[in-house]
């Protein structure tokens, strides 16, 4: 704890010099980081325009129940009767029978609004982020269903396991005060 010899010899001089150098280096690192300082934390999010709905989000998350869920952007939704995100392609009867549903966990709720419009909601407790509905909606519908990292679930790992597995680099870090990358509404 105590420094026995305070005499200035070559060894102590070198040691003190190195010590000062290390402290200065740490100061430079702090300064360099603060120069680019951003007040918020960064969080992971999926760019919906890069996502190819490959289903890796369902399996690669470190959480048992993936933090990635399907999001319904109602403003884009066509409220279709035959929703390609809700029904399987070969579905013969457009009713809520499980055999017609595309979603493996029945996480999409179909509600009649008025003829011919139906509203589709995601039950996040059931959604596993497999992106089957996303694929259907993007292929035949408006693409209002897409995957997003839900930040009430995400642990914000320093290296997101899904980002590592993502084949298109759709995962990126975004500022925590704007944590979602929703699709742009574009009624052409």
């Amino acid at each position, binding site marked *: 704890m105590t420094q026995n010899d305070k005499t200035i010899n070559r060894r102590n001089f070198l040691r003190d010099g190195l010590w000062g150098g290390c402290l200065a280096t740490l100061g430079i690192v702090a300064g360099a980081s603060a120069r680019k300082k951003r007040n918020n934390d960064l969080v992971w999010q999926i760019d919906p325009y890069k996502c190819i709905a490959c289903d890796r989000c369902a399996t690669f998350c470190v959480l048992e129940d993936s933090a990635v869920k399907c999001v319904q952007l109602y403003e884009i939704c066509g409220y279709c*009767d035959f929703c390609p995100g809700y029904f399987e392609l070969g579905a013969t009867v457009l009713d809520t029978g499980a055999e017609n549903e595309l979603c493996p966990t029945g996480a999409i709720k179909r509600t009649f609004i008025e003829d011919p419009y139906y509203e589709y909601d995601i039950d996040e407790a059931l959604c596993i982020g497999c992106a089957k509905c996303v694929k259907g909606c993007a292929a035949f519908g408006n693409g209002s269903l897409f995957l997003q990292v839900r930040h009430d679930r995400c642990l*914000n790992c320093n290296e997101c396991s899904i980002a590592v597995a993502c084949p298109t680099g759709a995962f990126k870090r975004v500022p925590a005060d704007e944590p979602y990358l929703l699709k742009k509404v574009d009624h052409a």
Partner: protein
Amino acid sequence: MRPLRNILFGLAISLFVTGMTTGVERFPPPDFVETDHVIPSPTSPGPRQDVYEYIDALVLLAALGLATYLILKKRSRRAIFALTVFSLLYFGFWRKGCVCSIGAIQNIVFSIFDPDYAVPIVVVAFFLLPLVFTLFFGRAFCAAVCPLGAIQDMVLARPVSVPDWAESGLRLFAYVYLALAVLFAATGSAFVICRYDPFISIFRLSGSLNILILGGCLLLIGVFIGRPYCRFLCPYGVILRQLSRLSKWRVTITPDECIQCRLCEDSCPFGAIKKPSAQWPEQEYHIAKKRLAFLLLLLPVLVFLGGWAGSGLKGVTSQAHETVRLAKQIYLEDNGQIVEATDASTAFRATGQQTKELYEQAANIRARFEMGGWILGGFIGLIIGLKLIGLSVWRRRTDYEADRAGCLACGRCYKYCPREHVRLKKMKEGSGKW
């Protein structure tokens, strides 16, 4: 309305068949006439609030301060252990690990090399605070604050000593690990420290099986060999070791003077107690002098060889970058060596980007890996060289001392020192009675 929709639907199918899969708004938004249904908005639950991140940084600061006090002033192993338990619970199980100081190395390196990435201030704090504390007070962070160290400290029940040569040799892994982590972070390829963090799955109580097995094995080894991750793998520990060599204050086994009683000799489970050393015999001294001269000349050769080998590995290391992997896949597909396309290559072709551009990007990244390989390999060569020099330099020691670099400041040795018992007034000066 219905027929129109069916026509549009048919159109959509034809679009799909022609390969157009990205979402476009094919159907107009609904036009409610019978009901006045309002179109809802999706919910957007926010992430953990910033304030908690700042609290984490403050808790880290407080824990480091307290650890320093307990190690250097209070000299109480029991109190240090209590703080270790707290750190394990708080930084490990409650905070669930991320961002930790070890992983923060990569964020800092990444931010230096990537102009777009600004490292959050809390991450900077997690990286710097333990380093600054180490520069002043030794490895207080390792002793009682780091959750990875804490979990290993908990399981250390039957410590066995590792021979010096094995300790030195195995420690090289940590240097290689650090060098690789920096290389991959600098090139923006991967955060390997996080990917192979052995205990994170335990803290989160979920995660991939492989990592759980890795963590379990390390803990099993940790029952006998004290803190295997800290000693032989931890890349942050490598930096802390070097700073700890220079620290202003540090752990001393005895509170005042060493009486050479040898009672502490085997008390350190991490092999960090240095015994007093006698003068080298005359003839051995001459051999050692020659050996040192040879090793000094060998040093630049080792650095060059390491760099040469490191840059030669660019074909392997650059595979860590997704662009390089994609370029390779595309190249093999285009040359008919692989028939089956991957999701990544299919998605790449859908973007309509030129393969030439991709190859150029990949070539640039490979060039960076070649440069990085020189630095990485040179660094490892330098470490090996310096280690050899360190082994052949004689240092005079009169007392039992805690190794400046290797001491994890856990405080286990304190109670072995009779002078400590005198200090605590459990034993009278000179009486030899308890």
